[in-house]
């Protein structure tokens, strides 16, 4: 219709997923500025708390981004988060282990869950939905088994009566805010995870292979890409990030709740999708997921600032997810 090359370039920029995701975020921010709840939207504390709140979901979304780019899905992240919350609380609160031992072990638990899902999917050709659904149920079971169905917290009943254990310094640190009380430590953990996943995708060979496998698995295989290894790696990383989120969860809640993380996987998927990463695989990036996390975080924050109840928040969030995805798909 319009052959002007300058117009053409503008149209291409407008069609970029990054631009569209940013635009969605800006619209949300404008809404926040409009409904600022008597100025509370303009205070840094509001943003700081939002970032702290979204961090655990964001960490899960880092792994989810890798998995979705390979064309898969990981439903198990919420349960793995719960499992690791329990094990980390057990190791560090109940048994008082040094975090230098406890943290690597906890990460190993998450990694093992991811590798198992990944192997089922890539070697045994179980559909990602089914394999990770099974892992979701299984990991929740293990969390309940280990904890005996109770929350692992500082209070312990022994034969001598009720004992109140020390809260580990490592958890205190994770739960703290630093840089003049301006940033939560878990937010920095989230950022580190995002940078790590982003580098893997953009700067390392396995990351490129993830795009290739998600974009066209058969062409990737015929080009010599180790498809099975690539897929397994994506789920392994997802398990690892879920474990990191699980440790943060235990620190923030000062306990290991075997029920923790229920439905978190759905929030993580929503973050990735709102960012504009394609559920069909092959397209997307960590930057998009970061924007998606901010979009979801601000949306919830603004609604709660304006005293919209949980019922309304959920309904509106569902609506926004569809709107965002339709918006991004248009004109593509």
């Amino acid at each position, binding site marked *: 219709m319009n052959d002007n090359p300058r117009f053409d370039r503008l149209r291409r920029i407008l069609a970029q997923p990054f631009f569209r995701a940013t635009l969605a975020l800006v619209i949300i921010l404008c809404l926040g500025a409009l409904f600022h709840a008597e100025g509370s939207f303009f205070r840094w504390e509001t943003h700081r708390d939002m970032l702290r709140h979204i961090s655990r979901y964001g960490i899960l979304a880092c792994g989810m981004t890798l998995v979705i780019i390979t064309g898969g899905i990981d439903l198990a992240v919420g349960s793995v988060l719960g499992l690791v919350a329990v094990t980390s609380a057990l190791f560090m609160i109940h048994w008082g282990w040094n975090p230098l031992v406890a943290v690597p072990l906890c990460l190993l638990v998450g990694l093992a869950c991811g590798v198992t899902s990944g192997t089922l999917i890539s070697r045994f050709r179980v559909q990602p939905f089914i394999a990770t659904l099974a892992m979701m149920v299984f990991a929740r079971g293990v969390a309940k088994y280990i904890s005996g169905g109770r929350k692992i917290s500082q209070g312990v009943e022994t034969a001598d009566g009720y004992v109140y254990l020390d809260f580990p310094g490592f958890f205190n640190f994770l739960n703290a805010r630093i840089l003049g009380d301006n940033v939560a430590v878990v937010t920095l953990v989230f950022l580190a995870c995002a940078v790590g996943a982003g580098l893997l995708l953009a700067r390392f*060979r396995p*990351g*490129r292979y993830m795009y290739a496998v998600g974009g066209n698995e058969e062409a990737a*295989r*015929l080009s*010599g890409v*180790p498809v099975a290894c690539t897929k397994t790696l994506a789920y392994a990383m997802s398990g690892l990030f879920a474990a990191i989120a699980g440790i943060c969860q235990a620190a923030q809640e000062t306990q290991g709740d075997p029920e923790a993380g229920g439905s978190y996987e759905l929030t993580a998927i929503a973050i990735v999708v709102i960012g504009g990463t394609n559920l069909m695989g092959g397209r997307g990036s960590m930057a998009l997921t970061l924007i998606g996390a901010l979009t979801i975080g601000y949306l919830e924050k603004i609604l709660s600032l304006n005293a919209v109840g949980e019922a309304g928040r959920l309904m509106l969030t569902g609506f926004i997810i569809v709107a965002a995805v339709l918006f991004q798909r248009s004109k593509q």
Partner: protein
Amino acid sequence: MPELLLEMTGIGKAFSGQTVLEDVRLDLRAGETHVLAGENGAGKSTLMRILAGIYTEYAGTITLYGRETRFGSPQDAARQGISIIHQELSLIPSMTVSDNIFLAREQAGPAGWLRFHREREACAALLDRLGVPVKPGAPVGAYSIGVQQSIEIAKALAFEARILVMDEPTSALTEPEVERLFEVIASLKRAGCGIIYISHKMEEIYRIADRITVLRDGRYIGTEDRDRLPRETLVKWMIGRPMSEQIFRDAPAPGAPVLELKDFSVPDPAGRPRPAVDRVSFSLRRGEILGLAGLQGSGAEVLVNGLYGVYGRITGGEVRVDGAPYRPGSPAHALRQGIALLSNDRKREGLVPSMSVTHNISLAALPRLSPGGLLREGLERQAAEARKKALNIRVAALTREVATLSGGNQQKVALAKCLEAQPRVLLLNEPTRGVDVGAKHDIYALMNAWTASGIALVLITSEMPELLALSDRILALHQGRVTAAFDRGAATPEAVLAASMGSVKGNDYER
């Protein structure tokens, strides 16, 4: 003169401006088997899709049972008695024979319940008529491919089909199954049905046909009674096109043998009992182009795929690459051994459409271009720039997604990817398919350049002039076996095509 069931006249069809059928005609009498012959891409399938109501936009007229008609949909065509027996059977294996036969036309009672027993009885009667020993209540999947095909025919008859189209029905059948199919066809003819039969097998054509119609390059060439159409004429009709396109092959300077096959075999990837490639032997030297001639089901494609490790470790026989034993295992393994494959389906198997031109070109060479696992965008860009120049890839920016490129440029990107892997042997499956004339000639020139630099090429192409002009040697394959070998110059289109159709022995063309 038997009743005329069908008359198609002046049929034309174009896809996005490209004409694939022009002024084609075909008629079918009751009780005859009418063979539709032609090379790959001659337009047979398109014509049959028009007949089946799959393509509803076309030029020309279809007259059915003496009345002009125009189908609005496949269901419409089926209702008027046209049925296609597909190569890929359209039965649901887990459902019973009778449920399959009455699928979507279940015999329902007034309240909507199924008249189960009536269906079973009708089904049994139908199968009896065809002489197929099948239990109506057994699942279709329990029977062999041959029996399933008979069930499919029974299904067509249950729809009261009078015109049956069979597209290479014997390609998946064993010898006794073929015999039974021919008996079924004879009984269909006696019942007054007309059969349009597509085949690439010379023996079969002359055994089953009453009349033969030949298409070539989307045009109607002629129709003749079988007995009045000698094999030589049939082949000439099928080829006929003048060698107008100038394709040059520089004088080759073959070096040492780089790829040697001895009794190379590949089992059928779809699991049929007959091997798809059966004890093929050849030796390919550096700088040489070996052409593989073959029609559908010849095994040429399975041969190159098997060699590249597409099917895994299932191949038999001996393969040597530069004298060292090589056992195909996976594409990654083949690439490490210096063997690359250009697939004939670039959309499905060749390219990752969502990735950029650069990333597609570097994909198969990443172990070399990203030392230590760290991506080096600079190295990749340099490589892509060089290939872009050498292959004359026309693209505004190498960062563009491959999906946005034209067919010819996409094909060049796929070729660039193969070359970036620095192969010693390059297997080319239809390198000029879906490519415009300009890009075609670019690719011909490139093939000369590659062989001059010492790469050995194996070429599969369905375009006879291309095969004859570019190949230094040609092997003709039929049903997985080599039927003839030709040196450059000794090959004529007629001889190569006849060998590809399996009629070498006892024939004038034998060398």
